[in-house]
C-alpha cells in the first residue's frame, strides 16, 4: 500500500497534498473518514486554519466537531456520576475516557463508543450493585451471554445509563480470563496515578500504549484499526521504545505489543512500509468499499480469527462461534 495514494491517509499524514484534491477525492476521503471514525480527528487537525478548504469540507468538519464537543461534555458529566457510584473502589479509566481526561495528543477529536473503567476484581460485585442503584443497567442478557461475560471475559455485561443511554464497560482486567496471555493487573494499578483534572486513576503512558496495542489484537476489530494504530503511535511518542517493550516483557506481552507497534510506526511514522507488514495492514483498512478486495476480506477474516483464538482456546471458541452464528441466523 502506498500511503500517499490513499486520500484519507494523505489527510492524516500530509496536509499539503490535500491542497490539490479534486471534489471526487474529497468525497472519497470524507466518506472513508466517517467509516473509520476519524472525522473528529480531521476536524481537530484542520478546523483551526480551515479557510483554504472547500466550503462543504469546512461544513462537514464543523458538524463532526459539534459531535466531538457534545461527546466530551457527555463523558465528563457521566464520569462525575460514575465517581458517585464507583469512587470507593479506586476506579481506573481505560482507553478513550482515559485519553480525554489525561488530554493525551491522540485525544483531540477522538470519538469513542463507550466508557471503559477498571476496578479490582474483589470489588466487582459491590460495584455492580452500586451501579444499579445509580441508574446503570446491565440486565436482560440471555443466560448464555451472562455466562460468557461472567465466566470467561474480563468485564461484566455492558451497562447502559437509563437516562443518557451512555454505555459503560466495567472491567476487572485487560484480558479475558480465558485468554492465552495472562499477567497480574495489580502491576498496572500500582503505577497508575491521579491526573489533576480527575478523581479517577489513569494508567501510566507505557501501560496506556500496551493496553491500546493488546486491545486491538484481542478485539479483532480491524475496521477501526487506523484509529487504534494512530492512538498507539501518538502515545508511543511520549515514551521510549526500550522501556515500553521492557514493560510489555514484564507482562509477557512483548510479542503482540511489538508486532502492533511496528504496524503503527509503519502506518503513521516515517519508515517505508515493509512488504512483510502489508498483509497485516490490510486487515486494518476502514470498512469502505474503496478498500474492498478479496485479499482485504481474507486479511480481515484471518485477523478476526486470530483475535478470537487469543481470547479463548479452541475447545471453548468453536462452540461459542457456532452459537453466535446460529443466533445471528435466527435473527435474520
Amino acid at each position, binding site marked *: 500500500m502506498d500511503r500517499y495514494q490513499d486520500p484519507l491517509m494523505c489527510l492524516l499524514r500530509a496536509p499539503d497534498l490535500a491542497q490539490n484534491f*479534486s*471534489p*471526487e477525492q*474529497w*468525497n472519497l476521503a*470524507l*466518506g472513508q473518514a*466517517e*467509516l473509520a471514525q476519524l472525522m473528529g480527528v480531521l476536524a481537530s487537525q484542520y478546523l483551526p486554519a480551515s479557510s483554504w478548504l*472547500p*466550503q*462543504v*469540507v469546512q*461544513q*462537514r468538519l*464543523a*458538524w463532526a466537531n*459539534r*459531535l466531538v*464537543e*457534545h461527546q466530551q*461534555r457527555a463523558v465528563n458529566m457521566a464520569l462525575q456520576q460514575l465517581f458517585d457510584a464507583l469512587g470507593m473502589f479506586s476506579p481506573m479509566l481505560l482507553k478513550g475516557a482515559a485519553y480525554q481526561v489525561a488530554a493525551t495528543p491522540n485525544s483531540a477529536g477522538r470519538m469513542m463508543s463507550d466508557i471503559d473503567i477498571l476496578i479490582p476484581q474483589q470489588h466487582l460485585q459491590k460495584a455492580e450493585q452500586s451501579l444499579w442503584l445509580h441508574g446503570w443497567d446491565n440486565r436482560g442478557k440471555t443466560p448464555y451471554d451472562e455466562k460468557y461475560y461472567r465466566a470467561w471475559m474480563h468485564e461484566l455485561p455492558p451497562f447502559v445509563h437509563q437516562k443518557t443511554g451512555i454505555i459503560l464497560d466495567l472491567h476487572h482486567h485487560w484480558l479475558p480470563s480465558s485468554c492465552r496471555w495472562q499477567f497480574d493487573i495489580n502491576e498496572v494499578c500500582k503505577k497508575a496515578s491521579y491526573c489533576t483534572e480527575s478523581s479517577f486513576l489513569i494508567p501510566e503512558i507505557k501501560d496506556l500504549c500496551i493496553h491500546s496495542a493488546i486491545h486491538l489484537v484481542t478485539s479483532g476489530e480491524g475496521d477501526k484499526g487506523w484509529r487504534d494504530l494512530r492512538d498507539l503511535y501518538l502515545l508511543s511518542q511520549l515514551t521510549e521504545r526500550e522501556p515500553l517493550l521492557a514493560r510489555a516483557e514484564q507482562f509477557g506481552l512483548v510479542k503482540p505489543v511489538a508486532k502492533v507497534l511496528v504496524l503503527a510506526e509503519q502506518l503513521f511514522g516515517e519508515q517505508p512500509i515493509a512488504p512483510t507488514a502489508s498483509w497485516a495492514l490490510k486487515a486494518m483498512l476502514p470498512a*469502505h*468499499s474503496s478498500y474492498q478486495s478479496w485479499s482485504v476480506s481474507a486479511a480481515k477474516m484471518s485477523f478476526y480469527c486470530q483475535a478470537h483464538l487469543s481470547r479463548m482456546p479452541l475447545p471453548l471458541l468453536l462452540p461459542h462461534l457456532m452459537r453466535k452464528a446460529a443466533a445471528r441466523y435466527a435473527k435474520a
Partner: protein
Amino acid sequence: MLKLAAYPEQVQAALKQQGLFLSLPPFVIQVRCSSTALADYFTRIYADHEFFPQPQVASFNIELKHESGLRRWLKPQIRFYQNEHAPFFSMPESHAPILWEWGLNYCIAAKYHSCLTIHAAVVAKNGEALVIPAPPGSGKSTLCALLCSHGWQLLSDEFALIDLSSRQVQALPRPISLKNQSIDVLKAHVEKKQNRGRFSAEYLGTSKGRVALYSVPTEQLAQDQHSYPIKQVLFPRYCQDQVCNVTPISPAQCLMQLADNSFNFAVLGQAAFVCLAEVVASSHAYSVDYGDFNALLTQLDTLP
C-alpha cells in the same frame, strides 16, 4: 448551475453514473440511483431546483441501490445508503422518491449541526416566520400546504433550521409530504385555484400508508438561503368536533416543547438552550385545537 426540468437526460445519466450534484442550500447533495423512477420525479417535482454539471464536494453522499439477488428480477427492491450505511429497510423500486425524501430527512436530522434543527413546518408572511412543531400525524404538513395556498410562503414542511447566533429560521423549500386523506383534501382544495403546484404520483402501502409529494407553486416558496425572524410558534392538533380554539402558552412551556421536538438540542448543548430562550422571549406561542381550517386562518391573522 442548471435547472433540473431543463436537462432531463443529463439528470438521468448523472443519477446512473457519477451522481447528480443537487444544490439544496445550505447543502450540496450527491445522489446516485440505479432506478429510473427517481429521475422522472426529480425533473417534475424538483423542476425549479438546480444542479451542478461538474462533480462537487458533497454534504451528503446518497445512493439508492437495487437489492441484489433473485428479487431484482421478480419484485425489485431498492435501499437507501448514506455513505455506504443503510439506516432503513428496502422498499419497492417504484417508491424511490419516497425513499429519497425520507432518507434526506434522516441525513439532515442526524448529521446537520450548524443550526438548531426542530421537527416542524415553517411558513412566513410579511417577512416573519410561523413555526409549527408537531409530532407526525398531527396534521402539520396538511396545515402547512393549506397555508401556502392562502398567502403564506413555504420555508419547510419538515425542519425549522434556527441559526444559533441570529436566531432566525432558514428556508429549505422542498416538496410537502402528504399522507392518506390529506392528499384528497389538498387536491380538492387546489382544484379551484388557478396556480396549483404539482402533485407526484401516489405511493401506496408505505409504512405511513398512502403518500404523495406536493410541490407548491414557485411564488409560494420562501427565498432560497433567506432567513426570517420567528414571530409565532403554533402547536396544532386536528380535532373534528372543535372549530378553532386558540390558547396562548407560556415561553417556558414553549421552550420545553421546542426542545422536545428538536433533533440536536442535546448535541448543541448550552448554545441551543440560549438560542431557544431568545426565540421564546421574542415570539408568541399558542396551542390550537382546530377542525375548521378557515376559522384558524382568520384567527391567525389577528393573533399577535
